[in-house]
């Protein structure tokens, strides 16, 4: 066997580190011109949209409001019934149930239908929430199908990176139905545009306003605040500064966070009262906006209403701290848990020199020699691992719960449900606990039993890994007793687990 050429190595790196793992035949295309193949995937129009007709955030949100109203009236009815029967159901258990349901939790089949009035009400309530759960599942399935089949996997990985950067999560039940629309409406169109536009789209999308509690934040001295004795919620302001832009080490203070939170007051979501066109959409409510000039990180912003926060967002986007923060996160995601400083510096310069043009930053990443080292140090996150398995099998998932949510939850990465606003971890140590490796093995064996292709297993290994396939894995695959066993070994090989 001859040694692989530089092109062969670069092609194998391109499909795994920059892409989502090779589909059958993809490696040959990438090997021909690895950088050109990647650059051709940069698209000013943004990332692709998942297949199928998915409702927009407005429709999803209105459906949520309706289901919530149903649930509340059922809850009142149930409480009345419970009191009548002097049953001992605690309200805590009830509200817990609704949260689990709204988060798209695989519900245990309704308990035996002995149909006491309370049971009937509970079943009705589950039924009322089913469309919401189905909607969340449809979002999870559609984006996984896109990732599993796209011929432009770098473009998709780039979009997934930005979604994780601007995490919204169904871990918060009220935001659950909006997570999919958020990715489609706020993230995908902007990922190869200016960071400032992406930041503004994310910060003002109903999903983010809901997830980080902005929608009800009220200026204490605004007309609305004085009337209702309502006040500030600083959650969104803090996370924009800490997670989305300048980063926690950039030297801002609590006072900066509070000032930014004051500037953000007014950004909210329309409800039914606001009328048909506004309900379920992001809107600005001047009567909730805290009057006055604000000072954030040493710069003064006169009170210009909604554009006050917009001006702060623009300055945050232009900050060299943001350039450094974004550069480092990109380098960590694509290249190494501890990335080479030269790579971070290169991406930071590309960001600053281009005014935060993300297409330019993507090009700089592809052109960076530090990104092409032959050693694969990034350990795949469960989602990457599962998607790359579907890709090499030439398959796509069709059952969102059984094929995606359930296995990914056991591996630690429940889809669209990051536990905290900082998103999923990029550090191998978070994904390599002993139990997590066992979960990957069990899933791989089941997946291989269902998807092992008819050709010789070694062809599958070559098509998946190309020049990255090591002699020990090759030998193990050749010695396997069955196609599923061989495919399990490919999926669990050290080189397929990494990228």
């Amino acid at each position, binding site marked *: 066997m001859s040694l692989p050429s530089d092109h062969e190595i670069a092609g194998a790196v391109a499909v795994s580190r920059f892409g989502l793992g090779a589909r059958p035949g993809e490696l040959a295309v990438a090997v021909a011109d690895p950088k050109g193949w990647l650059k051709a995937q940069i698209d000013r129009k943004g990332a692709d949209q998942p297949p199928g007709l998915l409702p927009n955030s407005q429709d999803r949100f209105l459906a949520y409001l309706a289901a919530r109203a149903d649930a509340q009236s059922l809850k009142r009815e149930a409480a009345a019934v419970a009191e009548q029967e002097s049953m001992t159901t605690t309200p805590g258990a009830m*509200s*817990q149930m609704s949260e689990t349901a709204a988060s798209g939790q695989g519900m245990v089949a309704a308990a035996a239908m002995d149909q006491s009035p309370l049971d009937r009400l509970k079943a009705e309530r589950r039924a009322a929430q089913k469309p919401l759960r189905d909607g969340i599942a449809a979002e999870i399935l559609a984006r996984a199908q896109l990732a599993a089949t796209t011929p432009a996997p770098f473009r998709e990985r780039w979009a997934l990176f930005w979604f994780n950067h601007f995490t919204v999560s169904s*871990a918060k039940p009220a935001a659950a139905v909006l997570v999919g629309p958020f990715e489609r409406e706020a993230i995908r169109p902007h990922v190869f545009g200016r960071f400032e536009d992406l930041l503004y789209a994310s910060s003002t999308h109903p999903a983010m306003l809901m997830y980080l509690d902005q929608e009800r934040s009220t200026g204490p001295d605004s007309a609305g605040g004085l009337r209702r004795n309502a006040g500030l*919620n600083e959650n969104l302001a803090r996370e924009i500064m800490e997670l989305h832009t300048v980063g926690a080490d950039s030297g801002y203070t609590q006072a900066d966070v509070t000032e930014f939170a004051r500037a953000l007051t007014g950004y909210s979501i329309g409800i039914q009262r606001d009328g048909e066109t506004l309900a379920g959409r992001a809107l600005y409510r001047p009567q909730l906006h805290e009057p006055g000039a604000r000072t954030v990180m040493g710069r003064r912003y006169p009170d210009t209403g909604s554009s006050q926060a917009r001006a702060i967002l623009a300055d945050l986007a232009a900050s060299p701290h943001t350039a450094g923060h974004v550069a480092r996160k990109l380098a960590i995601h694509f290249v190494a848990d501890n990335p080479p400083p030269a790579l971070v510096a290169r991406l930071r310069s590309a960001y600053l020199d281009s005014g935060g043009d993300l297409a330019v930053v993507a090009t700089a990443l592809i052109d960076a020699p530090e990104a092409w080292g032959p050693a694969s140090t990034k350990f795949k996150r469960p989602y990457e691992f599962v998607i790359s398995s579907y890709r090499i099998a030439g398959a796509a998932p069709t059952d969102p719960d059984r094929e995606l949510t359930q296995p990914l939850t*056991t591996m630690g990465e429940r889809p669209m449900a990051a536990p905290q*606003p900082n998103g999923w*971890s990029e550090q191998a140590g978070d994904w390599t*606990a002993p139990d997590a490796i066992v979960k990957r093995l069990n899933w791989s064996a089941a997946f291989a039993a269902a998807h092992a292709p008819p050709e010789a297993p070694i062809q599958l290994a070559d098509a998946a890994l190309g020049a990255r396939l090591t002699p020990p894995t090759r030998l193990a695959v050749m010695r396997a007793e069955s196609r599923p066993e061989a495919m399990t070994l490919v999926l669990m090989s050290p080189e397929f687990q990494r990228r």
Partner: protein
Amino acid sequence: MIRLSRCDISRRGLLSLSAGFGLTYVAGPALAAAAASKRKLAVIVCRGAMDGLSVSPPLSDSNYLSLRGPIAIRPDQALRLDADFGLHPKLVGLYALAQAGQARIAPAVAIPQRIRSHFEAQDLLESGGEQLYGVTTGWLNRTLVAMAPDHRVRAISIGAQEPLVLRGPAAVDSWSPGGREPGDLTRVKATLADLYQSDPVLGAALAAGLATEAQAHMMTQGQTVQARDERGFATTAGKFLGEENGPSIAVLSLDGFDTHAGQGAVNGQLATRLTVLDNVIAGLREGLGPTWSQTVVIVVTEFGRTAHVNGTGGTDHGTASTLILAGGALKPGGIVGDWPTLQSARLFENRDLAPTLDVRQVFKAVLADHLGVDRRALDTTIFPDSASAPPIASLV
């Protein structure tokens, strides 16, 4: 300021104990570990900043009700611990333990550095450093090393991800429910063991994971634990600890405590999470069985929440919060540490409950008095540069 006589006593006790500490714990680490081998420690990390002022409402603090408004836990709603403090009404199991002298609260605890980022604060809480980015491994992992350099003392992480507090040079077991083995994988496992031989991570991880899985299968007699069944989760964790030659330390994480809006009071968002916490403690106790009498449970969060209710019926990032201690090995007693009060002049930065106790003082006390960890190691390697934060007295 509210008078809390017990606190004064514990302060004095703290001083006298720390003076005599060097003499008490002259035994080497291996000896200490052997003596303590049956003692168990479970740490529950509540992520998102758990609101201590709702977990253990300060009932006699005259500012509490006005600061908290609609989200206050009123005296007639709380489960009363003593003249000054109560527990949230959802913490019924914990309350029964407190009545039996097996649970205590420390109402104003904080990490050593003032941070309001969840993620940085969790890093500091779990790394055990004096300040951020000082150490990259977890204090419980360094505890394992200090107790037994030969790695005889083990720990287990319960959940799909291994938390920072357990990461470091000592190998740690892990377990989470779900994902059964599809058919016979004997050959695949053997081949992978071979393939992973020179892998820096995968070989050890797979071997440990398979061993734990086999043990879990035996313990639960093949019954599956549902992924969202927190109590079942915790029961299994308790069983691991209670096994003959089982691990000494278990860590569990709970999320969902970041209650910026619509926090609720007796019912609502936080109450739901506290029900889960109560179930987890009950599950641990059930799984531990008789070993509960030799167990300490620590429930801790990265920081507390603002003293004021905010404009959206919630609370924002604060400073001090409540730490809960439970377990049969605990010494009965009142609250741990002083109460700073909620007077506006006493609030940290005019907004947060001020800390009166460094969280490391509690951790160190439990490690020293319960697990027999050497004081020198506690002050230097486990909690670097922490001699000025001495262990608090009379917890175990």
